[in-house]
């Protein structure tokens, strides 16, 4: 049973508090969605999602069920406890106004009203300012539902069609979090049209973290990350 469910329009920014013990499900209701996401410690937002620490602790360049998101302080922000999609991109960042305009053309508010073209950078800045943060607080984000493969020569390849209608990912908060979301298109998505997809989210109570929890036990680094997190939450 979810406590809260709501749909985020395509191309929109969003933010919410996600408390330890709750799980955020993101659902791709139309297929082909992308959700840029940033995570902060709700109480001390200077602690935040750290892409390199997340990748190197788990020796991964993609995210799916069993992986966790690390803060820069050696703690687990949230765990990916379920995932029907299989691959989420932590590498490619997000578009800004100039990049979005170059790719999709401009559509201003004056003429297009709320169908105007928005971009992930500006949407993140707006959400950041709501909490006393600003552009300096924005770093590399996760792109849920998107897949970027790195070939042996290092080249990055966007894989279209990674997320299907109804695909979802569950994020179990291990600390009290401030979460920024944005449903803008992935920066490497070759689609030349401005067609950001909506995403539905659900907040629900998490199941208790069992002794055999997949994310905690998937590697010894995560066990230590959970120890750090538990000590912080004492």
């Amino acid at each position, binding site marked *: 049973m979810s406590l809260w469910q709501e749909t985020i329009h395509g191309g929109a920014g969003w933010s919410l508090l996600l408390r330890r013990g709750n799980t955020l499900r993101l659902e791709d209701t139309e297929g082909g969605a992308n959700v840029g996401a940033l995570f902060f410690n709700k109480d001390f937002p200077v602690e935040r999602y750290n892409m390199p620490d997340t*990748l190197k602790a788990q*020796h991964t360049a993609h995210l799916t069920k069993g992986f966790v998101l690390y803060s820069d302080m050696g703690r687990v922000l949230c765990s990916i406890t379920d995932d029907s999609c299989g691959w989420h991109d932590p590498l490619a960042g997000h578009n800004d106004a100039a990049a979005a305009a170059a790719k999709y053309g401009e559509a201003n508010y004056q003429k297009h009203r709320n169908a105007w073209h928005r971009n992930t950078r500006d949407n993140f800045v707006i959400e950041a300012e709501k909490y006393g943060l600003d*552009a300096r607080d924005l770093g590399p984000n996760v792109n849920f539902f998107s897949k970027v493969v790195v070939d042996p020569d290092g080249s990055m390849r966007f894989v279209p069609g990674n997320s299907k209608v109804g695909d979802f990912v569950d994020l179990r908060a291990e600390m009290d979090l401030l979460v920024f979301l944005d449903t803008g298109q992935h920066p490497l998505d070759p689609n030349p049209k401005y067609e950001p997809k909506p995403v539905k989210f659900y907040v629900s109570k998490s199941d208790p973290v069992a002794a055999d929890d997949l994310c905690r036990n998937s590697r010894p680094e995560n066990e230590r990350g959970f120890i750090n997190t538990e000590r912080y939450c004492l």
Partner: protein
Amino acid sequence: MSSRRPEDASYSAVVNAGDYWIHEIKAAQIFRIVDLEGNQAVDTLFYNAHDTEERYSATDTIAAQRNIYLTTGTKLMSTFRKSMLTIIDDTCGRHDTLGGACSAESNQVRYAVDKRHMHACRDSFLRAIADPKWKLSKRDITANINFFMNVPVTPEGKLTFEDGISEPLKYVEMRADMDVLCLISNCPQLNNPCNAYNPTPVQVLIWD
């Protein structure tokens, strides 16, 4: 190979393992980092010297060139998607920007909870920017470059830390495309075999 001679440099310094270095590099100056003894990791961040809100962006750099490795020809992009510096010579071959900087806390996760006391790059970064004249704080410490580090990614999405591909006196040289502030931590990591558990000094040179 670069034709620039060290004796013609307008600035030269050795940064010892475990030390930090923070210095301004003017637009059009040439900046070289020399791996004096080989397989050292040089954790590096850049900021626009006049507006530090604009800073090096790992994701914008790799997305712009559609490649995760930094080498000759790579433009080091800012969060404003402008070129901050361009790599113009590289005798190492490639450099990492996904592995980030070690910290006391990430060492706890990666190696053992009781490693927190060990010296780490992010402590060096924080010590360097503690001087208020730089107008930087912890939130400005973002995903950095690891010059001379070898961190391959496989098509299956695995990230691995491989033995270094650098050797003594390998170097990377770049041209500043704007006035930048350069912040380096010469990595003190003692837990990782990639530097043979022996961090070593590097040399930084600037030509006008």
